[in-house]
């Protein structure tokens, strides 16, 4: 079955440190890949997406993600986090067999001052 895994439920990072959030999917072909962010009590905002082409994609708020086909991964990175990055981050995958997004369970990012 198609699935999306975010192995880290929580991650704590010091302000100014680098960040990497992991996302793996199970699927034979290349899906469409997304990262969304949800601030407390808010809706979901699209950070970035990958459909094809360059496997390193840039998003909003200084985030980037790299698609690695061999590892079935789409990890989100940021070189230096800010306190305002504290939120929950969701990886989602659109498999081309239908128009339904499959979601990871989310990673909650905590920023230490």
């Amino acid at each position, binding site marked *: 079955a198609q699935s999306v895994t975010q192995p880290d439920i929580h991650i704590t990072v010091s302000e100014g440190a680098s960040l990497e959030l992991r996302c793996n999917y199970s699927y034979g072909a290349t899906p469409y890949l997304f990262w969304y962010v949800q601030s407390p009590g808010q809706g979901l905002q699209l950070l970035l*997406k990958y459909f094809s082409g360059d496997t390193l994609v840039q998003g909003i708020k200084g985030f980037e993600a790299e698609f690695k086909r061999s590892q079935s991964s789409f990890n989100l990175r940021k070189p230096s986090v800010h306190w305002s990055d504290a939120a929950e981050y969701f990886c989602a995958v659109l498999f081309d067999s239908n128009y339904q997004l499959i979601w990871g369970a*989310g990673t909650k990012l905590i920023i230490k001052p």
Partner: protein
Amino acid sequence: DAGITQSPRHKVTETGTPVTLRCHQTENHRYMYWYRQDPGHGLRLIHYSYGVKDTDKGEVSDGYSVSRSKTEDFLLTLESATSSQTSVYFCAISGGLAGGTDTQYFGPGTRLTVL
């Protein structure tokens, strides 16, 4: 931000009562979706619509029905609310004129509590 509104934003109801949540969009997007969000589960698709009067079930459709009589509105009905349906409900849209069907944009959510 995509023009998506949800109403009500908060609702408390009692077990056994029917509840209808509304999603309204001003983007003329073809696809509309209803999700529920629960801790540890991410988002789970309840129902979606791919056009007026065209709907289909998602992963967790039991106990829910939907209707779409016009492009801009997508209604989610809990026929007889249960405590297990206490959740945050999100509407999403996709398939606008330039974006194809591939990117979903989300409404602000409705927090529903069933007592």
